[in-house]
């Protein structure tokens, strides 16, 4: 049945994020020939909105305001509220990102609607949309069906195909947002991430360290390898608990779940809770001194050896190969 779908399209520093197109792709499937309206919220988002409007849809709304420069649930919800009233969507689709997972439950509560979070695939069966999502951080998957509209869906980045339809000509409706006087939350400071840091959940390659890295300094060769591969650096809980790195790097059932093309586990034994966070990676490489480490049971390629010996050599060889390929 055709539906009216609202997409909250995410941007970062004025650039449309890939997950926005993935959400739009999901919206197109769900809409089933119905209407699609997208909203981009931020400080200066006209360009992102115009880019989005190249994909066919009924309307793209850009909401701009200085107080929207950094994501905050209250401000973004206040900016979005009038659009929800106006569009009266049957379905709202967002990315399951730091901001999407924060904003979606507010929308769901406001609409008294059910929500399916963190969807990794969807299919239409007998006119009904079925949503697949991980539970227990990917130790299992559940398929869900929604019993009423309106409802809200958040989609996991890097899992759904981005919308491929071209030739859109929807108008971009630009609206100004003025911060009301009585807001209760305010972003007072933002430290931008270090330029070396790729976002863990979006990186194509993840280089991850465990207890075997032995110290904060021990992460250095991992960062060098990551640099060559344009990879993000992650860690196991053991490494975080030992204070070798920040908890924001933690991968596992507690921590982040990653599904990169290549996951390189260095000095990680492979506790069940860690495996939950990375075992859906396409290719897994493990480097560990202990030939009996459980990580080898799921690794596509295993190297029994000293990471401090192997990793720098690997970095060196990759540099050479890449230089040769460019030459």
């Amino acid at each position, binding site marked *: 049945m055709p539906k009216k779908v609202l997409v909250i399209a995410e941007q970062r520093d004025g650039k449309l994020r890939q997950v926005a197109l993935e959400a739009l792709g999901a919206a197109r499937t769900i809409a089933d020939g119905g209407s699609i309206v997208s909203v981009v919220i931020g400080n200066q988002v006209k360009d992102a909105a115009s880019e989005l409007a190249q994909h066919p849809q009924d309307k793209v709304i850009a909401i701009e305001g200085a107080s929207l420069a950094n994501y905050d649930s209250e401000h973004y919800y206040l900016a979005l509220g009038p659009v929800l009233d106006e569009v009266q969507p049957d379905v709202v689709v967002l990315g399951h990102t730091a901001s999407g*997972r924060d904003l979606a439950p507010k929308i769901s509560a406001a609409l008294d609607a059910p*929500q399916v*979070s963190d969807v990794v695939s969807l299919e239409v069966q007998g006119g009904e949309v079925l949503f697949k999502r991980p539970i227990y951080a990917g130790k299992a998957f559940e398929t869900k069906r929604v019993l009423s509209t309106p409802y809200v869906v958040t989609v996991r980045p890097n899992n759904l195909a981005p919308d491929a339809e071209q030739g859109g000509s929807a108008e971009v409706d630009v609206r100004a947002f003025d911060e009301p006087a009585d807001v209760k*939350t305010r*972003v007072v400071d933002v430290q931008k991430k270090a330029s070396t840091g790729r976002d863990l959940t979006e990186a194509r*390659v993840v280089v991850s360290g465990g207890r075997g890295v032995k110290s904060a300094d021990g992460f250095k060769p991992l960062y060098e390898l990551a640099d060559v591969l344009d990879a993000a650096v992650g860690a196991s809980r053991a490494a975080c608990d030992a204070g070798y790195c920040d908890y924001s790097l933690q991968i596992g059932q507690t921590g982040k779940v990653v599904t990169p093309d290549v996951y390189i586990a260095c000095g990680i034994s492979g506790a069940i809770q860690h495996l939950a966070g990375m075992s859906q990676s396409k290719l897994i490489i493990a480097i560990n001194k202990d030939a009996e480490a459980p990580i080898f049971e799921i690794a596509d390629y295993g190297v029994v*050896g000293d990471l401090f010996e192997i990793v720098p050599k690997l970095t060196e060889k990759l540099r050479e190969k890449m230089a040769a390929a460019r030459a």
Partner: protein
Amino acid sequence: MHVVVLMKQTFDTEERIRLVDGKIAEDGVKWIINPYDEYAVEEAIQLKENQGATVTVVSVGNENTTQALRTALAMGADEAVLIEAPELTDERAIAKAIVAYLKDKSFDVLLAGNFSVDNGAGQVAIRVAHALGLPHIAAVTKLTIDGNQATGVREIDGDVQTVTATLPALFTAQQGLNEPRYPSLPNIMKAKKKPLTTLTLSDLGLSSDEVAAKVERVEVTLPPKRQAGQKITGTPDEQAEQLAEILVKALR
């Protein structure tokens, strides 16, 4: 100051998931406080110790959930409330039950985990806050309360944000917020005498219609098992060479 903590009991993160007749088997499973909720409980107790507060822990679950609530009491919470409604699986309905309990209560700080390590939907706490008209700061790694102002630090896509909020407000706990304590034996004994109230949905004035599920689980599956692959042998130099070739090929 009154601090309310929303918590859930979950499988231990070292448990493997087994399916019996298409359902997740729960026999013999070790149960814990959801790790993110445990940070929330610890933060509440630290507020109590440092600034003076009464701490109430609230959970929606079944009779077995009292174990997790008793653990929170042993950590230092003052009272526990169990909303006994094991039939509720939909986050919308669970949030409604909590809202029904909290709507006429007075509190300054609402704490919860960032998400649960089982269903991982990350909805309930924020739904509750929105329904009660409270602002929230999600996934905080640092929280400071000063009078009716709170300051939370959170990581968002790698950036570190500092956000202020006027109380009452909800804060959801991210890893790194604190290190939850282990309850001592004397405190475990004391916890047995602390008040634990059990409420039903009808105690809360909720009809079954109001909390009827609006989403349904159709199927649970396990991911395909990964097979151990190939061991790369040779000298460290040869191993590194082979790995480099594999990587170049994989990323081409």
